[in-house]
C-alpha cells in the first residue's frame, strides 16, 4: 500500500515540477510540512527538558540561584538516604496501583468486550465509566475524605453493623487511601486501551479455540491475553507515568504523611530550590524512562499506534 501510494504521489507531482519553484525541492516541502509539529515539540517538549537539565547543574543558596556547572545537586541527591526511601515509596505506589488497575481494568474491559453483546449497551456502559471524569481530580479525591475519615461513612457503617468495635485508623491518610485514590483516578486509563485491543480480536478466533477444545479460562490465557498484550502495555505506560509523576494525590490522601518523588520536587520548588528540584526531576524522568524501556522489551506496541 505504501509503495502504491508513493508511486502515484510521485506520478502526480512529476509534471508540476518544472513550473512550480517550491515543489522543485521535495526535501523542502517535506520540512515545511513537518515544521509546525517540530516547532511545537521543540518549544514545549525539548526546550523545557533542556532547561531542566541545565538548571539541575546550577548552584543555589538560600537567597540566590547561580548559573554554574557542578554536580553538587546530584551528589546531595544520591548521598541522602531520604532520596532512596522516597524513590522506593514512589515505585511501591506505582507497582501496587498498576497491579490493582490492571486487574480491575482488564475485568471491566473483558466484560464490556465479550459479555455485553449489543453495541448500544457497550457504548452506554463505556460512557458510564467516563462519568467520574466530568469532575476534577481534586474534587474526586477530596470526596473520599468524609467517606473514609475516623467518623466517616465507612467507619460508622462498619461500627453500626458490628463488624468493628472501634474506628479503623488506616482508612484515611495512609498508603491505603493514597492507592485507593490512584486506582479510582487511573483505572479508566487501563480500561480504554485494553478494551480497544479486545474489540479488534476476531470473534472467530474464540470459536476456533473453542473448536479446539479450550475452556473459558484456557481461551483467556492462550488467546485473549496474548492478543491484548499491546493494550495492557499502553495502559501500563499511562498508569505508571501518571502515578510516578503525581504529587497532589499523595499529599491530599496521605495527609502529608507519605512522600513520593513528586512531593520532593514540589517541596523544593516551594523553597525556591530550583536547581535541586530540577536535578530530582531529571532523575525521576530517567527512572520512568527506564521502567518504560523495560516494559517495551517485552511487548511490541508499534502495531497498536
Amino acid at each position, binding site marked *: 500500500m505504501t509503495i502504491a501510494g508513493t508511486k502515484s504521489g510521485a506520478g502526480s507531482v512529476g509534471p508540476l515540477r518544472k513550473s512550480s519553484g517550491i515543489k522543485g525541492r521535495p526535501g523542502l516541502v517535506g520540512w515545511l510540512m513537518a515544521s509546525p509539529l517540530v516547532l511545537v515539540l521543540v518549544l514545549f517538549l525539548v526546550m523545557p527538558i533542556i532547561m531542566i537539565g541545565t538548571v539541575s547543574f546550577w548552584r543555589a543558596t538560600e537567597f540566590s540561584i547561580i548559573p554554574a556547572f557542578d554536580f553538587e545537586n546530584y551528589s546531595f541527591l544520591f548521598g541522602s538516604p531520604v532520596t532512596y526511601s522516597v524513590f522506593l515509596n514512589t515505585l511501591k505506589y506505582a507497582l501496587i496501583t498498576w497491579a490493582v488497575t490492571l486487574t480491575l481494568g482488564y475485568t471491566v474491559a473483558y466484560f464490556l468486550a465479550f459479555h455485553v453483546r449489543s453495541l448500544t449497551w457497550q457504548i452506554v456502559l463505556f460512557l458510564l465509566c467516563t462519568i467520574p471524569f466530568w469532575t476534577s481530580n481534586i474534587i474526586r479525591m477530596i470526596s473520599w475524605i468524609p467517606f473514609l475519615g475516623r467518623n466517616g461513612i465507612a467507619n460508622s457503617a462498619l461500627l453500626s453493623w458490628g463488624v468493628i468495635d472501634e474506628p479503623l485508623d488506616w482508612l484515611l491518610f495512609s498508603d491505603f487511601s493514597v492507592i485507593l485514590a490512584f486506582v479510582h483516578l487511573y483505572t479508566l486509563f487501563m480500561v480504554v486501551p485494553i478494551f480497544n485491543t479486545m474489540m479488534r480480536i476476531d470473534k*472467530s*478466533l474464540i*470459536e*476456533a479455540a473453542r*473448536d*479446539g*477444545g*479450550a475452556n473459558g479460562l484456557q481461551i483467556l490465557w492462550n488467546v485473549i491475553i496474548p*492478543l491484548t498484550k499491546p493494550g495492557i502495555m499502553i495502559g501500563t505506560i499511562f498508569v505508571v507515568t501518571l502515578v510516578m509523576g503525581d504529587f497532589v494525590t499523595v499529599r491530599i490522601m496521605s495527609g502529608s504523611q507519605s512522600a513520593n518523588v513528586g512531593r520532593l520536587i514540589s517541596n523544593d520548588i516551594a523553597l525556591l530550590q530550583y536547581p535541586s528540584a530540577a536535578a530530582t526531576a531529571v532523575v525521576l524522568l530517567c527512572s520512568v524512562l527506564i521502567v518504560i524501556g523495560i516494559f517495551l522489551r517485552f511487548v511490541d506496541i508499534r502495531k497498536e499506534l
Partner: protein
Amino acid sequence: MAGPSTLELISLTKRYGTSLAVTSINHKFRSGSYACLLGPSGCGKSTTLRMIAGHEAVTSGSILLAGSDISHLPPAKRGTAMMFQNYALFPHLSVLDNVAFSLKMKGVDKPTRHRRAGELLELVDMSKFGARLPAQLSGGQQQRIALARALITQPQVLLLDEPLSALDPFLRIRMRTELKKLQRELGITFIHVTHGQDEALALADEIVVMNNAVIEQAGPAREVFNAPRTKFVAQFMGGHNVIDLANGPVAVRSDEVSLTDVGTGVLPAVVTAIEYQGAHVALMARAHGAQDITAMIPEATFFSAPKEIGQPVGLTWPADRQHALAG
C-alpha cells in the same frame, strides 16, 4: 446402518427471535462422503453448519453422529472440526503451535504435540513453514494450516465454511482438487458450505441445495444438475432454461435446446442476442410471454446456418429432456 461418520439432521430448526433461519430440515449425510451445502447467502446453510459444529445453539430438533445425539455437546466433544471462512488462525502463535493448539488444550506434552503437528503439516505439505507466523503466509498456505489444525483433533466430520471464497480463482481450483484428494485419503465425511454451484458440482458426491431456510433438493451432483426439482434449483444450478409451457413450468438444459425453422419447433421465438463463447455460441431468444430462453449451440453447428438478431426461429428439444418443475 450408521457408519462411523454418518451425520443425520432430524427436524433441525434455528430461530432468531421471530425469524426462522433453518426450518425443520431433515437430512442424512452418508459416512465418508463429500457433501456440499449449496445456496444463496442468507439461505441458512452457514447456520446449519454452525449448528452441526456446536457454535450455534439448536432451537429444536437434533443432530446425530454415528447414531448418538450430539446436539447439546460442546464443539470439541462432538467429533466434528470446523475450518473457518477466514481460517481464524491465531496470529500470535507459530504455524506449528496453531496446529498443535487443541493438543495443548488437552494437556499433551510439548514434544508429543509438536511431533503430531509435524505429521499433519507433512500431510498438507507445509512442513517447511512450521516456525512462521500466520501473517507470513499466503492465503492458500493459511488454508492448509487451518485444515491441518482442524484435522489434528481426528474428527469424524470436517465442516468447511466457504473455505475457498478468500482465494483467487486460480488457487481456488487447485485447492478444491486438494480438498477432494484429502477427503478421499482420510475417508471421513466432509461438509462444505458454498454459494458457488461450479464448486459444488466439482467437489461433491452429494449436493444439498438450500433456499429460504429449507432444503430444496438433495442428491448426487449429476442428479441435482440434470433433474432439478424446483424452479429455484434449476435457476441456481445454472445451465437451465425454466420455461412456462401450457401444462406447467419445465426445465430444459440450455445445451439441449436447438434451432429449427419457424413453425416446426416446440416454441417460436425471436433472436435477441448472440454471444460467441468459444466452443459454443450462446443464443438468447425471446418466446411469447416475454420468456427469455438461452440455447447453447455447438460453434460449428451455429456457423453452418448463422442467425441474425431479430430473426424469428423455432426452438426445439428432445421431449424426454424436459423436466416438470414443482414450482
